[in-house]
């Protein structure tokens, strides 16, 4: 089944086409939102939300760009929205808790991959977003500027700061 046939099937309400579209794109969406979410429960919520929105808005998709690219934009929008909610929740928790037990646990295992995950998680959100979008997901600064609502120069500056902080955090392993 071609992509156009798949879309036509979904728009016509064909359950098999809906499932086929989901199967074709779920792994990429899951990978993207998992990296932003940092845990599987949140990633599952955001993957679910992404596909609900995709099915709701597919009629607006004209096919001028690849469907996967469009679905990726929806996933990032969902992740950004989700991160805003998480940030609000974390701010409330910080008032109640002055320590973070889960993080203390992770620091007990200082291998390089673990240290890398910690260092990325420790980045301020606006640095982490740009780093993940550019260095992991492969978006350009122009695309990131559009997605995040910032100037291209801001995106470049944030990436530079993010990398500098990661270099510092991993200096002991270099």
């Amino acid at each position: 089944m071609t992509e156009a046939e798949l879309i036509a099937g979904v728009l016509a309400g064909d359950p098999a086409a809906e499932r086929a579209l989901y199967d074709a794109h779920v792994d990429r969406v899951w990978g993207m939102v998992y990296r932003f979410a940092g845990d599987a429960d949140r990633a599952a919520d955001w993957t679910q939300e992404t596909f609900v929105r995709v099915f709701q808005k597919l009629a607006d998709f004209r096919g001028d760009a690849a469907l996967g690219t469009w679905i990726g934009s929806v996933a990032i929008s969902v992740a950004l929205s989700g991160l805003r909610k998480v940030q609000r929740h974390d701010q409330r928790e910080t008032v109640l808790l002055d320590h973070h037990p889960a993080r203390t646990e992770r620091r007990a295992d200082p291998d390089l991959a673990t240290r890398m995950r910690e260092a990325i998680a420790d980045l301020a959100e606006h640095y982490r977003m740009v780093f993940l979008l550019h260095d992991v997901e492969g978006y350009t600064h122009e695309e990131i500027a559009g997605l995040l609502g910032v100037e291209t120069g801001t995106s470049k500056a944030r990436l530079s700061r993010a990398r500098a902080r990661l270099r510092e955090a991993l200096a002991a392993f270099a």
Partner: protein
Amino acid sequence: MNDDERDAMIRRLAHDSLQPPPAPREEIWRRIEMERKAAVPAVATVPTVARMPVRWGRVLVPLALAATLALAFGLGRMTAPPPPSDHAAESPSRRAAEASSTAHRLVAAEYLGRTEVFLTDFRAAASTGQPDETASREARRLLGTARLLLDSPAAEDVRLRALLEDLELVLAEIAQLQRERREDLNLITDGLDQRGTLGRLRAAVPAGGTPASTQGVL
């Protein structure tokens, strides 16, 4: 090792260390189906986009949303509470909450007004030629404000939230326009028409446009 080599190592490490576990496909699919089924009764009078012919989906859904917004805002005008007659009886925290809520409504009203002007200009420029780069810059500024509003108490209103989310999408598209093609410009303007974004914006923007007239509108 110099900075470039360290950056390359960091990219490689980030890829390797952030590998997700396998997606729980079946569980997520089951949840998607449940959520979509649960959403059907709430819009029982309007068939879902996925189940209706494309042409009617594009016409009816924006119309239904615009009508819902207009009705809600009209009701808001009619049912806005009268000024309290006994200020001394109110608690300071309630007054503070009301002041904050009013402030967010005013900011949202001012923002929707500015966005309406911008999108109207953009729509006109798109019909006569390619909008210039200032459109992308202004879209980025408005996009930033949309996200701040989405993160504020103003977004607790589900209708306003839906409108802001649509604006977030269209402004992000315009912000990226400078690198794209004429067909993408058509895609954006068609999307504006299909989602009824401008009509919904106009329904949400208070007549007269002065902050004092916004009470009960948002």
